[in-house]
């Protein structure tokens, strides 16, 4: 038998539930209306998440040497200029064999490490023996590398400021060798070990030798007295790739642009002015320009914000701040959902207070993809604040890869064909002032590297272009740097850019 009033209680309960549902629905619809969300595309995740956060990239993931050189000790050499990363560092245990950074970490675990400065001649002699060397185009502080890769660098290494080259020679197995190109200094870091069987560098050397391209010094190939000893790859065959690309804005459209813009303006997005011009540029501006995002038609996104009061931070902290900022603002996921790896290609530090560092990144697809004129990502960190962020990712469309033989268009012949054009461009750009030598000598003296490189060539106004394997010559003179690109198919100039 039912209690009196039970039916009424149930009715009241149902009414209450309906009231709650209606109340919640009202809130939800208000939110949808307020945020201008298309209900058809709405997911529960979007309702709960304030800002999309992409996986945080560790500093160790964005660093890799630009070139890996092997000396076979008989006057012949090997080089790896593409996938140097797999020989340098891996996030997992080095199951396929030790990496260079792992081997250095093992080295630094020894006791009684001391450092001595050596001469350039000694350095050249010892690395001419069977050795393994990594080259960083952009020198990095040793302290920074020690922090990033957990090398237990002893206080003795504090004398070493920058690392342009790091080498291990089987001619002096108890040592590591460092070149600080900026200071023009060479160091020998001496440990205890001298056991060939135990050093992880041995298996690394063997693994690297299998995949390295044959290379010889420029001086040996050209015979010019002035030619410098930079290594020139002489590959029999290599993969030649040509890819057409478009940009993120062209693929992702307005949805991608808005979602990226929202990450910069957050809750203030509704108070952000959007100015659209006839050329297709959208400018998002908050306040009187405290925060501005400019999205251009060619797919470049440039964000700037006013510098607030901030304090000095170390280089590694600046890099971590930059990478954290990236993870909150689009990450490395492109508009077509692919996830890119990054390669830190340039660090521009300003001697100011608070610290100001501009990091330039290339995208990494099997190897770093160099940009003609700029980079894929640039982040400027002043103190603890990111004040500038430029994102210019490409979206590959059609790729063709084929094995290619350099044939007669070796790097040396590309140089022989184009040195006059190179010299003319360099002189116009202010290189070789007051120098009276012949063009060939001037060019040969200033070559810093010759590599096969994947290069993203300048895009059209619509943000399209091509990425192609080409010969890349890196020239440096009195601190000025320029890169030249030449076709591997016909040795013709393809472009050049300041670095």
């Amino acid at each position: 038998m039912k209690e009196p009033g039970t039916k009424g209680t149930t009715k009241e309960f149902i009414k209450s539930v309906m009231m709650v549902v209606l109340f919640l629905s009202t809130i939800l619809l208000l939110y949808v209306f307020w945020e201008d969300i298309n209900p058809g595309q709405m997911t529960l995740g979007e309702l709960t998440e304030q800002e999309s956060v992409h996986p945080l990239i560790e500093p160790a993931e964005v660093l890799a040497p630009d070139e890996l050189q092997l000396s076979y000790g008989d006057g012949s050499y090997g080089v790896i200029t593409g996938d140097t990363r797999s020989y340098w560092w891996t996030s997992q245990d080095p199951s396929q064999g030790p990496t260079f950074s792992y081997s250095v970490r093992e080295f630094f675990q020894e006791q009684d490490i001391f450092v001595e400065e050596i001469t350039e001649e000694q350095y050249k002699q010892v690395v001419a023996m069977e050795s393994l060397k990594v080259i960083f185009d952009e020198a990095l502080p040793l302290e920074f590398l020690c922090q990033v890769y957990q090398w237990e660098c002893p206080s003795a290494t504090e004398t070493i400021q920058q690392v342009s080259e790091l080498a291990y020679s089987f001619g002096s197995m108890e040592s590591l060798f460092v070149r600080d190109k900026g200071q023009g200094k060479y160091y020998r870091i001496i440990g205890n070990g001298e056991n060939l069987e135990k050093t992880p560098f041995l298996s690394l050397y063997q693994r690297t030798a299998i995949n390295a391209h044959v290379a010889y010094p420029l001086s040996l190939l050209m015979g010019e007295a002035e030619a410098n000893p930079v290594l020139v790859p002489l590959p029999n065959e290599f993969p030649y790739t040509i890819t057409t690309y478009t940009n993120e804005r062209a693929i992702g459209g307005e949805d991608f642009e808005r979602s990226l813009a929202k990450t910069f303006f957050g809750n203030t997005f509704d108070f952000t002015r959007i100015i659209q011009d006839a050329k297709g540029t959208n400018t998002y501006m908050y306040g009187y320009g405290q925060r501005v995002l400019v999205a251009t038609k060619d797919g470049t996104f440039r964000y700037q914000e006013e510098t607030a009061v901030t304090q000095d931070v170390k280089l590694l902290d600046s890099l971590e701040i930059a990478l954290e900022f990236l993870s909150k603002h689009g990450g490395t996921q492109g508009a077509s959902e692919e996830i890119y790896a990054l390669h830190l290609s340039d660090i521009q530090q300003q001697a100011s207070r608070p610290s100001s560092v501009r990091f330039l990144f290339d995208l990494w697809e099997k190897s770093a993809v160099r940009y003609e004129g700029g980079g894929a990502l640039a982040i400027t960190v002043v103190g603890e604040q990111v004040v500038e962020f430029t994102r210019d990712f490409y979206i590959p469309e059609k790729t063709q890869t084929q094995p290619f033989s350099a044939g007669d268009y070796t790097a040396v012949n590309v140089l022989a064909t184009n040195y006059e054009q190179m010299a003319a461009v360099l002189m116009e750009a202010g290189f070789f002032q007051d120098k009276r030598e012949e063009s060939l000598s001037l060019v040969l003296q200033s070559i810093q590297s010759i590599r096969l490189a994947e290069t993203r060539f300048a895009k059209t106004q619509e943000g399209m272009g091509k990425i192609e394997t080409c010969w890349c010559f890196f020239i440096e003179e009195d601190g000025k740097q320029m890169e030249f690109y030449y076709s591997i198919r016909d040795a013709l100039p393809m472009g050049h850019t300041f670095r």
Partner: protein
Amino acid sequence: MFYQKTANNSISKRGLAVLLIVVLMFSMCSFFSLTEAYGAEDPAVTVVNPMDGSTVYSSSLLISVKLTAPETIRVNLYKQVKNDADGKPVPLTIDEWNKVQSEKTAIVSGAAIATEPSIQVLQGWVMDTVFFTSTNNLAFFTKKVENLSGGVYKVKIDTMGSGDAVLYTTEQVVFIKEKAAQPVQANVFENSQTGTVSFLQNLLKSIFGR
């Protein structure tokens, strides 16, 4: 007239004798010359590597040729061999090569009675012939030849004319030895500070700053 005729005869006889001597000397020089050149060397061709008469301690050899004119060259690498008692080709040793060169020098200078060296040197095949054409006033032919055993090798570069005509020939001899035979280098860090001194120096630096 007669006098003139006699004089002419004597001049022509003398001239003929001089000419014969010149031709004889030229042909002997050509035949026994140390470089064994088949013709004059091409001024537009320079063998950058290997250097003539150099020793390479490696199983590979880089051939680098510089061309300063638009032309076609034919590049060959031969191993210097001789026939053994059974008539089989065997590599010429460096000592044997040096002996042959000494004998040739002696023959040319007239110090030796023999008219040809005691060992007949043959050209052993090493690699396929390579043709390279330059269309500029500066070009380089480069090739790495691998898996070479010890011995005496000759790089031969022919400058090609129309058809199969050889206009010039340039040759370089190189001695290949095993890498293990390389003379032991003096210790690079012989004059470096001792470990203890460096260690103490580093210790002091770390205590008192740089």
